[in-house]
């Protein structure tokens, strides 16, 4: 009887269609929207902060480097070690790492407001340019004898503060709590509206 089941199954319309339809693997090489491929690192963008190498779960062992090896030029990926977890892309502060198509989805995520900002006191700044040299993201420049900070690209590393010879010339000003809350509410609202319209 179940031989009949088999035959019925094979001879059903669906069955016959599948019997005659030679599948080819080409159709299935399309990676899904969220596929985590090997990370690609944009060394131009990288600020060599090392966060990605810290986050990577594949550590070094004798004879083998870690999956993401930190060099002074930036991280170097060893494909044969990488497990494609995507953690490195998640932690990178400047989105220098992309993991396949998953990344595009992440781009849409609104950047959160920064909880603080770096301010230079023009009265104290002597224009020595040391901050300019140590800044990992090239955000501080001496212009007309005074350092000026580009808030967009600053990653709040405070390296400049450490390097500055004048105490108090560069300050880390925490953002006003009320201000911060306002920013967040605005972001959440826009997000809600987006979801609602979909």
């Amino acid at each position: 009887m179940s031989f009949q089941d088999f035959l019925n199954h094979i001879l059903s319309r669906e069955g016959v269609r599948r019997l005659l339809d030679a599948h080819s693997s080409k159709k299935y090489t399309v990676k899904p929207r969220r596929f985590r491929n090997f990370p690609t690192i944009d060394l131009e963008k990288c600020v060599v902060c090392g966060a990605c190498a810290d986050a990577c779960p594949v550590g070094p062992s004798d004879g083998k480097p870690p999956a993401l090896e930190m060099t002074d030029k930036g991280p170097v990926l060893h494909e044969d070690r990488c497990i494609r977890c995507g953690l490195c892309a998640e932690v990178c502060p400047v989105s220098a790492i992309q993991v396949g198509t998953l990344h595009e989805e992440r781009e849409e995520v609104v950047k959160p407001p920064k909880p603080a900002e770096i301010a230079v006191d023009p009265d104290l700044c002597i224009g020595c340019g040391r901050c300019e040299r140590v800044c990992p993201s090239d955000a501080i420049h001496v212009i007309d004898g005074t350092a000026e900070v580009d808030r967009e690209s600053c990653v709040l590393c405070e390296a400049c503060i450490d390097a500055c010879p004048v105490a108090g010339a560069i300050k880390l000003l925490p953002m006003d709590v009320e201000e911060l809350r306002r920013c967040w509410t605005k972001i959440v609202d826009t997000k809600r509206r987006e979801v609602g319209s979909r």
Partner: protein
Amino acid sequence: MIVIDTFVGVTEAFLVGSIYLGLHRKIMARIQRRPGPPIIQELLHTLKFLFKEGYAPITSAEFLYWMVPVFNVIVWSSAVTIAAVYRGNLLPFFAFYAAYKVLSHGAGVSSGSTYTKIGGVRHAIMPAGELALACSLISAYFVTGHMDVSGILAWEKTHGALWRYIPFSTLAFFTLLWIDSPHSPLDPSKGYDIVEGYLTEYPGFLRSLMYTSEAIKYFCELWVFQAVFLGISDPVVHMFVMGGLTAILATLCALTPILTPYQAVGVHVTVAGLMFLDTLVPKPWI
């Protein structure tokens, strides 16, 4: 002349047998809903193994180990020569089949591995091969009075195909084909549980010889079945019927799991017993 005839016949048997084995696999693959290998794949396998390194494992009884595949090819070449090329007596065919069983057992025992031993023993205890063959040939003899293929074919010309007279023996012989086709449920001697049965330890060109003999065997058995029971002597019709038989066998093999040795022996004995029905059951259509 004889040499050339024989050579051509055996080569043809090998090529055609390989291609039908490839077709067998292709049909199975299609039932499994995948594209499946090209039809010449079995032929390519045989050729590939011919160039591959071969060696005898340390545990093997070397003489037997090397000779079994060679004898296997000789046995089946002779069988195909006598039965198909010269349409001669069928008794040697039976003898060759029995020799093949003994050889497969030898293949199993000689290499010294447990898997092959079990495989060889399993192959030897499957009785339906010889039994069905012997009984159906004897029934054919009783009905037609001939023991050689050309005689039977001549008889069938006047009386009609033999299967109408002895349908159960025909069925038994068909079961023999089923047993000997690849992935057959009734042949546990190459089951995955013992890796590859008596073939496990054969690498390289020895395996290629084994495959060659299997292809010739497949052709030979199909040919004898058609000639004796279906009464077909035209070579072109032969090819088509072989394709049809292969399709049926492939479907049967694709839709069944492999039975355990005991169940397989049970089925074999039942099938062999079937043939006695031929003497009992009246056949009103004759």
